[in-house]
């Protein structure tokens, strides 16, 4: 008789013991029951072990710590990857989308009007030089910021204002600066612009919306603060900083500069045919590359456009 059978027999015998309980004095019944239960648990454990031993012995053992059996090929899983910048952009857009923002993609070749004039840069103003723009022989400009799309967004969704609604749109896009490339500088990178216009829009609301975005993005409550900034197309203009989130190792001390923002300059609204006396708005723009670099602790921006599988297969 195998060990298993033996234990099963014992268990059966034990079960018969239970019947004796009615012959036991009331005050001793509890102790009697506990004792039997313990014994039964013990036997059941023994039974499990015996079954396992029998199963194990019936089949050849393999080395579960090895990647493959002897003389076999190591299995290869073919997998693809998403570009980290595109993944992050998708997440960013999905949050804004849930907040009720429409999405409109930026174009990679634009003109002087959208890059500067429509954004209240006076002609020949030195601020235009600050963007280190590329230019084509025809005078077209690969945009140096996604703000080039503000004018288009305002015009496209102006009807929503006229219908008593608001303009709420975010604009992701690829932007270009005439810069030498090194670990922290790229001439090609991604930004996301946001535009909101309504009747009683305030600076306080802008802070609320942006704080809300970063809280959703990092999944925690965050303190924010600002630094005065200067952009010809917003006034007042500030840089928004957020408290370093816990996921990035923040301990409630450091701050991260996330984006530039401000109340849309009346000239910008006017140029898109919106009455600045009646409607106010805010706009913001920030880099996507930086979000990704912070998230993964990347220290070299050049990886993004490298096309290197060594890098990409990690994502």
């Amino acid at each position, binding site marked *: 008789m195998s060990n298993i059978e033996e234990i099963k027999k014992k268990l059966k015998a034990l079960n018969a013991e239970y019947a004796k309980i009615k012959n036991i004095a009331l005050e001793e019944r509890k102790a009697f029951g506990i004792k039997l239960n313990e014994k039964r648990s013990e036997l059941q454990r023994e039974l499990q072990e015996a079954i396992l031993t029998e199963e194990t012995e019936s089949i050849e053992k393999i080395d579960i710590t090895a990647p493959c059996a002897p003389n076999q090929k190591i299995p290869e899983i073919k997998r*693809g990857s998403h570009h980290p910048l595109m993944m992050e952009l998708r997440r960013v857009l999905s949050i804004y989308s849930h907040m009720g923002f429409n999405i409109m993609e930026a174009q*990679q*070749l634009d003109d002087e009007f959208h890059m500067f004039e429509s954004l209240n840069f006076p002609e020949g103003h030195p*601020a235009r030089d600050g963007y280190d723009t590329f230019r084509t022989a025809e005078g077209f400009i690969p945009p140096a910021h996604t703000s080039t799309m503000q004018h288009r967004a305002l015009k496209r969704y102006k009807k929503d204002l006229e219908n008593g609604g608001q303009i709420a749109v975010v604009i992701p896009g690829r932007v270009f600066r005439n810069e030498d490339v090194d670990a922290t500088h790229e001439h090609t990178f991604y930004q996301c612009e946001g535009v909101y216009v309504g009747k009683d829009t305030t600076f*306080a609301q802008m802070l609320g919306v942006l704080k809300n975005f970063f809280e959703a993005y990092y999944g925690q409550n965050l303190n924010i603060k600002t630094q*005065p900034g200067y952009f010809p197309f917003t*006034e007042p203009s500030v840089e928004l900083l957020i408290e370093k989130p816990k996921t990035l190792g923040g301990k409630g001390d450091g701050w991260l500069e996330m984006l530039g923002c401000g109340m849309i300059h009346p000239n910008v609204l006017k140029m898109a045919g919106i009455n600045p006396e009646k409607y106010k708005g805010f706009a913001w723009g920030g880099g996507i590359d930086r979000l990704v670099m912070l998230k993964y602790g990347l220290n070299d921006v050049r990886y*993004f456009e490298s*096309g290197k*599988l060594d890098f990409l297969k990690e994502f």
Partner: protein
Amino acid sequence: MKISLNEIKKLVPEAVDIEVSELIKLIGSRLVEVEEKIDLSKKYEGAYIVKVVSAEPIPDTHLHLCKIDCRKEDGLVQVVCGAPNVRAGMFAIWLAPGAVVPQTYGEENFKLDVRKLRGYESYGMLAGLDEMDLGDDHSGIVEINPHQKYVNENGETCEVLPGDSFAKVFELNDIILDIENKSLTHRPDTFGLIGFAREVAGILGVKFNEENAHLACFKNDIINNNSESISIDIEDSDICKRYSCAVLEMTDGLTDDKFLTEMDVFLAKAGMRGISKIVDITNYLMLMTGQPLHAFDYDKFVKVGGIDNAKIVVRLATDGEELQLLDGKTIKCNKNDILITSNNVPVALAGAMGGANTEIDVSTKRVILESATFSLYNLRKTQMAHGIFSEAITRFTKGQPAFQTMPVLESAVNMLGGKVTGIADCYPEPAKQDVVKITTDDINGLLGTNYDTETITRTLENVGFEIEGNKELVVKAPVWRTDIHIKEDIIEEVGRLLGYDNILIDYPVRPFIGAEEDSLLQLKNKLEDVLSDKLAAHEILTYSFVSRKLQEDVGENPADSYEIVNSISPELQRFRQSIIPSLLEKTRDNLKAGYHDFSLYEINQVTKKSYNFDDDGVPVLYTHLGFVTTGDFYEMKAKLVLMLNELGLRKLTFRASDGHFPYFEPAHSATVDTPHVCCGEIKAKVLKRFKIEQTISAFEIDLSQLVKELPDTSAKMPELSKFPAVERDLTVKVKSEIAFSKVEGAILESLEKASNAENLDLIFKVIPVSIYQKITDDSSRNISFHLEFSSQKKTLENTEISAIMKTIQESVEKTVGGKIV
């Protein structure tokens, strides 16, 4: 820009009692980002002013063995010094053992100790100007005036004593703020310490005391009575709003102090260096007021112009006009440059640099001091054209206000102490102060705040605005604020000075309306998921600009690409016409890196000159998907078909390539029409250029077009029958020239026919299994299919199945001349 906190505190006494960290925080949140805080008291710790009591030459060396008095109880200290100017009786700076040499502070932090030089113990060192990080001079040690005065902590003026802390005497118990001035480009006033301090007062909520700024104007009678020796002619007031100048006779000459001065230290704190008395004073005033000054040698000036009395003409240069500058370089001007001329002979590149022909030197007796303001637009271009990035032009390009040329000039004259023999001021169109009408509701309405009139008025008045009215405010901007024109300018001031971070956050009130979904973006996301997750491809990003060489290598016409005229390198010169060429480059790189079996794709924008413009006159950009895989046509095709199927596109017809992209091998490429896809193997000739030795296939799709061709519902549940399905294998032998699609089509068609004829309502699948061709005889091939069909009405009987198979057989024989084998 480096700002001394001590200087700020002198101008704003209220700042003295505020914690430095708190002050920096306030400046950061209400004016400008403070990038770095440099504590000079730490940098100059261990530096003392000492008297050299004796200095004996050490034989056969250039060294001196010195005994110095540093007021130590245990007597004189021995220091070995190699400077040629060390001598008994002089006052010098001693860096004691344990002190860090200030020049190395914050970097290698070189710490001094006691060491033996030529057998003599030397305690620390006597320091030169460069070692003290106060200048570049290394010719000797710094000499201190034995009668140097300073104000002690009790406010009393004292004379220096040996052993005094150097930092205490020269006010180096100071903190320097290094600020990021990029965000102040619209605030020329803050490029001077006075303007910066005024902002600090405003931030602290106190009124700035303009008296502290020490700027006063010349009295009009002085100007009128002293203008004979000089006259000014501005040819165009657009290039120069105001030009003021004074002629000074330097009674005590221009000799420089041999001792270290407070001025040297002041300039060093700002990151500048002492040069000569006159240059130092003009630099000092520029740092204080933001107004750059320039000095000409008067006698050289008139000689260059060939006249007796100086005649200054401010005009635009002509193209190619030459001028030798102070730094010895001769520049060729362009017609945008503004020139200062002596009777039309160029003597300075306005705002940028003086000319060599009127340079001040030791023999200079009379000087012309210039205090002017120039067009920032012109100067910005001058700066770029000639690569001049001086402190002066940095300020000029912010647009210095015209009001202060005369007051700053007067300060300079007072400080130089010469005799004024001429003054002139040319200000053709005096600037008007802007007046803005605004209500408290305007301000609170935009900021989302609840500030009362009193708070608003006080905040603005603290920094020099003049305000009339209550609720309806009439705000007059101060003369130095050239940036205040509209309501928003005022609102910004109020919000900023009272602290944006004090604004309580709020949220827009909106109806619950779902956001529009961008169909192209959705398609992009869907494709990314299919390609990366189901087809194991890698998404990459490559530059939008490519090289002419790459375009030529793949057979694209470079002339049809928008060309970047100021590109960084030839690699990034042309806006790309398609995605595949960039992917081929990365395919090559990854093959080289040891990968051999992979697919890459990118979704990005492309355009060509020959494409249309949109309504704004901007080239239309198309979003393309480019896909490249290591493998032949069929491997690529399988992936392409799966991808399109996933989008709900199931009826795909591959026809001979339309040659839309030049890099596909014509005999091994195809076109699908709806949606328009070009696919195929890359030409061997092209691959050779990339030094790729294996077969590479690719496809490219215009997603802007594809998005319009997508079926309404991309996911459809496949039809299922509750009756058992019949499975049959079928091999058709056909002539090799018969296209596969013809054979497959014949089978599908006959199944369709059978379904209708017998009213069986068939559901069927025709799955290709293999294509076999004899190596010895390529005239025909055997194509095998696996068929699955079932009726939606009933269980098919054997006779019905035979009939269906017969229909197929007949159809194949008839339409493609095939034989069932």
